[in-house]
């Protein structure tokens, strides 16, 4: 563990990413205290430029952009983490069973996975949200459905490699139940790549969510960054910063998560370090 932190710290980009991510998380957690009340509340004169009474200005309806960005951070992180957590859990179980049992089970499960992978993911997410209706729940479901196949494939590959190792043979020899071998013995051994993939998936999930909310497909009562960009689009000519500010928030968050993910990758797989 100590060695892991030392390796992670040596990667300056990853530390920078972690600091950025910590800032975003802090803003997200303290948003209800920093900007109490609904972020949709009218705060002042519409379209006042940044650096006036309101640090980031107000939008077309006089809503405080800073409050929106803070509350939007909550939405983005929540959806990103939730969707990824479910996708990782589902993908691990799916891929785990496929890799462990092999043969017909593997064939069946992998065909299903490939079926989901063939469908263009963003279009699929749009169709799902269209069918399920605009709510926080359906957004999470849509993102989960399009992102679990990647985990399933990764976990299956790891399991196939682990299946033949001595410690698994020993467990089978001891007469352990399959479920116990899978979850107690093999899964912990493939955690490293799953964590790395998972962290990168959070970034993708946030990008998908912002795309959906930009198109106006997510819950209209929940403030999000994509929605802010979409709402500011109409006055792009007069007030370009309305679109720019939330976009920068998305960019920095996704960048931070990617940096942390790569740092994790380098720290968890020391053998893969670039020369």
């Amino acid at each position, binding site marked *: 563990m100590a060695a892991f932190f030392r390796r992670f710290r040596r990667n300056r980009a990853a530390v920078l990413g972690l600091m950025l991510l910590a800032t975003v998380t802090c803003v997200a957690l303290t948003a209800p205290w920093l900007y109490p009340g609904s972020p949709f509340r009218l705060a002042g004169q519409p379209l006042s430029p940044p650096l006036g009474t309101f640090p980031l200005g107000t939008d077309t309806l006089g809503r405080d952009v800073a409050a929106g960005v803070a509350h939007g951070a909550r939405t983005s992180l929540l959806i990103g983490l939730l969707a990824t957590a479910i996708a990782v859990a589902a993908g691990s179980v799916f891929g785990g069973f496929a890799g462990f049992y092999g043969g017909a089970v593997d064939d069946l499960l992998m065909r299903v996975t490939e079926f989901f992978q063939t*469908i*263009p993911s963003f*279009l699929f997410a749009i*169709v799902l949200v269209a069918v399920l209706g605009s709510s926080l729940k359906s957004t999470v479901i849509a993102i989960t459905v399009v992102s679990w196949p990647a985990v399933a494939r990764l976990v299956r590959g790891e399991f196939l490699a682990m299946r033949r190792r001595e410690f698994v043979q020993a467990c089978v020899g001891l007469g352990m139940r399959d479920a116990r071998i899978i979850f107690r013995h093999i899964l912990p051994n493939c955690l490293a790549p799953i964590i790395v993939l998972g962290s990168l998936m959070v970034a993708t999930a946030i990008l998908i969510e912002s795309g959906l909310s930009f198109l106006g497909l997510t819950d209209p009562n929940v403030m999000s960054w994509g929605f802010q960009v979409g709402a500011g689009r109409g006055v792009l000519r007069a007030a*370009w910063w309305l679109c720019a500010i939330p976009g920068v928030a998305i960019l920095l968050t996704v960048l931070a998560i990617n940096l942390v993910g790569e740092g994790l990758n380098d720290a968890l797989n020391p053998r893969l370090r670039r020369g």
Partner: protein
Amino acid sequence: MLAGEAGSATPEYMAQLRAKFGLDRPLWLQLAAYAKNILVLDLGYSFRHDQPVLTLILHRLGPTLLLMTTTLVVSVGLGVALGLLAATGLNSWRDTLISIFALVSYATPLFWLGLMLIVLFSIRLGWLPTSGMETIGAFTQGWARVVDVGRHLILPAGTLSLFYMALYTRLMRASLLEQAGMDYVTTARAKGLSERHIVFAHTLRNALLPVVTMAGVQTGGLLGGSVIVETVFGWPGLGLLAFQSLFARDLNLLLGIFFLSACTVIAVNLAVDVIYTLLDPRIEVG
């Protein structure tokens, strides 16, 4: 649904309509009917546009294909070139600069990038048109038309390309570095070949394999991205059609586009398998 929106439908009329379109039958029967129709390429009828779905889609296919082909060529071309530049100057300022550029582009939301490019090039500088595919009412012919469409194409294609270019740059760099550690490179070096010759005659070809794979896998993503980009730039393609059908609740049309996209992805992946054999003669189409 349309009748309901008009607000003049009696319950009897609605029931009659439902029976006519088979909406009163069990769900699985409806699904079977839809599946049967798809097999003969009958994608249904769009009541919003009062046209068969297939006609609508084919009409919009051209602009999307133009956008996607341009994006694919630009992003793969530039991505490979940048990856090559980064890998050959490993850990130099060139490498660092390209890597940072790729990292940032990779994290940029497409719609935001599109809007910012509009602000910069169309509103501030006034160089390029903001939206559409042709200047409205210009009715240009021949080369003037090509130039006009080209000018409209720059921003959407550029937006879509930047993200994928970042992807291919990173992949190309990693793949070239991996190849550089192989035994055959050491052999080539021992033979006294120049570094330049090694890269262009030996490693480049091998390093291209994962990039081609990725380009195939990403076609689906490209279609999804085109929904956003076409919406931002008002490009009259499939993506915009999908977006409009979504808000008009024209599900027949949306499903048709969806179905066609999945088919495109499969077709492209088959094409990728063929490209493999060109790049690496050891692989055969089996």
